[in-house]
């Protein structure tokens, strides 16, 4: 068996360049300091694979800094009164979380690259050339690896390693954290290739759903467990016992120091990951299938008010594109499952039953915040599903704002399984009023966040001749949009929590609840009014 297929690799670089070209059509051409900065992060059609990956690396560096700049601040502020216990616990918990999250990021990036290749049907452009199907499929596998994911995580690892090094003076962090991030990519990548080679790019979403949910449950279980240790000794014992399992050898070596076991297992994960990442794509290619459209069945008749018809069109597009469907429901399940499960746990139900009535309603209205965060992360998929068909939107009499509304309506329809499940569970376990509060707040905050997210993204994408894909926005802009949308929460949430916990004299007990209900109301009413407008 050939270890490395050079022809397929060359083809993979062409796939990536084509995807960038289809998304951008032309290079970013601005001049000046801002343009120089933007150029460092935004892919360009003039990039070779090295420069393209370098941009992902710098984006990873910046994302890593954004994710962890507050660590030294917290340590500095709190070390006088919290001591070694808190700092060790804090760093270990943080590292476990980011390393497991890196798995989630790489899984999602792999979905994204495969979705882009599929949507743009890049292989169709070369299928008449004398290139075998297996080479094309292997090329798709390679393009996943050089598509930026590995470089992004490497950059993130370096940035976080640097910050951890400066925070706790651990020189090992500079090697072990990037190594941990790289091995998560190298371990996830071959698994994903096998999954996609068996199931094809348009396979049912169950596998990815399972992977996402499993990862999140693992993250929460491990993460929450690390927070419940009663002493540093107990935590160290835990780390020592599990330092054979990813990601603990990297964390152990970073926080405690190198020992034979952590070195052997860190190296083993890297070596095995590297070997599998070389071997698997040369054996298995991603199944690239032209979509097969079975023509039995009846067409829907989209005779609804104008923007609702457009929203139903998006619902149909998503439900008929299993790659995007995987992404949408995979991420949604990953974000929501732990919280839905918490509503079924005896512990949380006992706490809720024990609370004052209004206070329990406030707690449940916090599901709105979860919906808000979910919408910020998940809703962009409905824009990317347009891909190069965004040109259809441009020829129709619809403006940017109307498109944002119609996409919000569509994403809200697709989101409904979550609030409905929440409504049913809460109504059965608590009361119908609790159920209504959960249903209302999760929908209202979802609508608010989706609409703002679409407005911000369309600000960058509207009118651009390239396709709307993950490449057209670039990771940095996506992160910027997410940060912009999450900043208001940083002010809003403490206010609600303060009202809830402090209940000042000037505010009645239900003020927190009223605030949670009223804030998203204007946008929600505005958007929903379009259901009836023709």
């Amino acid at each position, binding site marked *: 068996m050939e270890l490395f297929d050079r022809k397929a690799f060359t083809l993979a670089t062409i796939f990536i360049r084509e995807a960038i070209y289809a998304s951008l059509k032309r290079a970013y051409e601005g001049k000046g300091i801002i343009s120089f900065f933007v150029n460092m992060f935004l892919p360009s059609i003039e990039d070779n694979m090295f420069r393209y990956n370098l941009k992902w690396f710098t984006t990873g560096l910046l994302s890593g800094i954004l994710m962890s700049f507050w660590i030294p601040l917290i340590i500095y502020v709190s070390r006088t009164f919290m001591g070694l216990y808190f700092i060790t616990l804090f760093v270990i918990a943080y590292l476990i979380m980011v390393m497991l999250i890196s798995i989630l990021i790489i899984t999602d990036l792999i979905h994204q690259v495969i979705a882009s290749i599929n949507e743009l049907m890049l292989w169709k452009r070369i299928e008449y050339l004398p290139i075998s199907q297996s080479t094309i499929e292997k090329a798709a596998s390679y393009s996943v690896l050089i598509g930026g994911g590995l470089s992004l995580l490497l950059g993130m690892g370096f940035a976080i390693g640097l910050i951890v090094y400066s925070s706790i003076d651990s020189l090992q962090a500079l090697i072990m954290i990037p190594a941990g991030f790289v091995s998560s990519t190298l371990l996830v990548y071959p698994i994903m290739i096998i999954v996609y080679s068996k199931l094809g790019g348009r396979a049912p979403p169950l596998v990815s759903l399972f992977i996402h949910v499993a990862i999140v449950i693992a993250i929460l279980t491990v993460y929450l467990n690390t927070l419940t240790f009663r002493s540093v000794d107990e935590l160290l014992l835990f780390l020592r016992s599990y330092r054979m399992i990813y990601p603990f050898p990297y964390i152990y070596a970073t926080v405690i120091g190198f020992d034979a076991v952590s070195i052997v297992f860190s190296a083993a994960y890297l070596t095995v990951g590297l070997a599998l990442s070389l071997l698997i794509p040369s054996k298995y290619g991603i199944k690239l299938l032209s979509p097969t459209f079975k023509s039995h069945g009846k067409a829907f008749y*989209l005779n609804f008010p104008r923007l609702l018809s*457009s929203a139903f069109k998006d619902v149909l*597009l998503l439900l008929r594109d299993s790659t995007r469907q995987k992404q949408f429901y995979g991420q949604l399940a990953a974000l929501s499952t732990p919280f839905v499960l918490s509503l079924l746990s005896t512990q949380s139900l006992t706490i809720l039953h024990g609370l004052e009535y209004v206070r329990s309603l406030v707690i449940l209205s916090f599901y709105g915040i979860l919906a808000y965060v979910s919408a910020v992360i998940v809703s962009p998929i409905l824009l990317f599903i347009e891909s190069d068909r965004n040109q259809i939107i441009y020829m*129709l009499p619809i403006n940017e704002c109307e498109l944002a509304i119609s996409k919000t309506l569509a994403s809200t329809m697709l989101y409904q399984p979550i609030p409905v499940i929440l409504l049913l569970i809460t109504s059965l376990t608590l009361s119908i009023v609790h159920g209504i509060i959960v249903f209302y707040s999760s929908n209202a905050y979802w609508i608010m966040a989706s609409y703002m997210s679409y407005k911000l993204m369309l600000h960058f994408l509207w009118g651009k001749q390239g396709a709307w894909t993950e490449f057209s926005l670039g990771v940095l802009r996506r992160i910027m949009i997410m940060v912009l949308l999450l900043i208001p929460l940083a002010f809003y949430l403490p206010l609600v929590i303060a009202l809830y916990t402090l209940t000042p004299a000037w505010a009645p007990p239900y003020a927190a609840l009223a605030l949670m209900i009223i804030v998203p109301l204007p946008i929600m009413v505005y958007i929903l009014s379009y259901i009836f407008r023709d």
Partner: protein
Amino acid sequence: MIIFRDVWMSYGDTPVLKNINLDIMPGKVNVLLGPNGSGKTTTIKLILGILKPVRGVIRVKEYDPTLNPVSVRKITGYVPEDDLVYHSLRVKEYLSFVARMYGVPRNKLNEAMERVMDAFMIRDYENYFIGSLSHGLKRRVMLAAAFIHNPSILLLDEPFIGIDPRIARALKIVLKEKAKEGRTILVSTHILEIAEVIADNIILLYNGEIIAEGSVDKVLAKAKARGLEDAFLSLTMSREKVAEIVKALMG
């Protein structure tokens, strides 16, 4: 009526249209001719407000497409050159979506859809996914979508490519009839035989400039040619160049 005054357009540093002055009158079939890359599709996209000119003024009826593209698109039916359709929608779904976006009243939607599906002979395919249709059938779906709201302006970019002679003949007649009704028609095509038959007014673009404009006879007279093909070649390429290409292709 569509008016271009001193319109310039470029992609980056590459000029695509240079100082275009043009009156596209209603009641006539206006045909846009020109070699590849001469700026035909760009001209159509400027009319729709999909692209914005670097300089100059464009008016579509009373609207400026740069400032008010939505109003222009409401009264326009457009068939793009590429297969721009959602492959995972069924024909009826796509047409009903497009019709509703154009504002076809809900109580008249069925009637409008039946009219265009019958006209372009796609009724048998209404439940088919567009992705499963042949290229020609996809073009017919796109034509149906452009006609569904009975627009007062029709912009058709290479509408005759890929469609069979029955539909092509019907389309030629329809364009003539629509022009007689006072609608504004602009067709871009490379098929000179068709242009010769349908055109009331020819606009010949070359290297981003209008090098000939007027009735077929006027263009033929300018080029001192007997047919449109000869006129096209003599205005856009030397005979020696044609001979060179033939020689190269023959190997």
